[in-house]
């Protein structure tokens, strides 16, 4: 098992609804990075034809082309964007605003009982998602991912601050990602390894890949 840090995860207080647009020049620019997690994810989905892949990030023509080019079927659902729906904001017991998780799950990640996915691209959604929605979303993912199905997720390290840029991830190759600045979502927290393991405790295994930038890549097997 990976080493467990003893730092508590860091919550970033502040305005969580600050998804604002960036200048067009910043939106167009793309950075490339190697991804060991993606390489392993791709290795797992390349052997078979006709798998069902779920992409939880913003709509990416590149990802759609890549996945369908492998002969798979893709389902796209930008859960972070959907979580910004103002009608989901409700007061918590202490009066502070929170999100209605039941309604969020009634409107998102809804599939027929027979529908399961072979693989899920989660990207760094949990880091930016409102606290009230993180665990319910992971529980729903556990339900819709088939046994032995895989999930790729990214988590910021504790060096990242609340203003860490939000990126859209595009698959540029078997082990290469292109990162494109997206809307200015605010980083909500930084999980440590123990919290990541707790988050996915109902899954059968979890593998960490430490990258050079402030991101840990995680491959989870249902």
């Amino acid at each position, binding site marked *: 098992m990976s080493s467990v840090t003893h730092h508590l995860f860091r919550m970033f207080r502040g305005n969580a609804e600050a998804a604002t647009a960036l200048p067009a020049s910043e939106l167009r620019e793309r950075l490339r990075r190697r991804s060991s997690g993606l390489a392993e994810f791709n290795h797992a989905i390349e052997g078979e034809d006709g798998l*069902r892949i779920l992409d939880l990030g913003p*709509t990416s*023509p590149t990802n759609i*082309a890549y996945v369908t*080019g492998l002969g798979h079927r*893709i389902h796209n659902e*930008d859960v972070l964007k959907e979580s910004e729906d103002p009608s989901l904001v409700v007061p918590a017991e202490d009066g502070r605003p929170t999100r209605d998780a039941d309604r969020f799950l009634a409107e998102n990640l809804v599939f027929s009982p027979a529908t399961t996915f072979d693989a899920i691209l989660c990207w760094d959604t949990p880091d930016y998602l409102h606290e009230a929605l993180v665990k319910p979303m992971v529980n729903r993912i556990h339900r819709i991912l088939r046994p032995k199905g895989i999930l790729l997720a990214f988590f910021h390290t504790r060096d990242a601050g609340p203003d860490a840029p939000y990126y859209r991830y595009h698959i540029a190759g078997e082990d290469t990602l292109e990162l494109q600045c997206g809307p200015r979502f605010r980083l909500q927290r930084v999980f440590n390894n123990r919290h990541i393991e707790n988050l996915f405790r109902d899954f059968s295994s979890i593998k960490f890949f430490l990258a050079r930038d402030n991101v840990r890549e995680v491959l989870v097997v249902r």
Partner: protein
Amino acid sequence: MEISKPTDSARAEVAHIGKSVVVRGELSGSEDLYLDGQVEGSIELHDHHLTIGPHGRVKASVNAREVVVHGELNGNVHGSERVELKKNAVLTGDIVTQRIVIEDGAIFKGSLDTQRAAAKPEPKRETVEAVAASVSSSFGAAPAGPAEPALVEQKK
């Protein structure tokens, strides 16, 4: 209901539904359609093209040969040949088509199933074997099958 053919030569053969028009029910036709208004129900154009304009707001299942979306479409889409989502398009629903073009900026929530075109009738067995033998002698190994055209295009 305002359905007219515009005088614009570029749209000469295209029926046009303007942005102030609201249609509820089944919309079917045997010509191409440019839709910039609101439709709730279903749209059946089979062998023809449907273009949903930038003001188009559609809550309907769609069946057409080619579907181009600039506006909003909420419903399942069957484009027997091609579906294209322009940069401001918002599509919520499942897509089944042979070819898809999605511009960066388009928003898509749903599943995409790219179906290949119906296979051409197989040539006689002797012909296949003759071709395989020919390729094998030239390159050392026969290819597994005919090259497939790209199913997905990316457009920025």
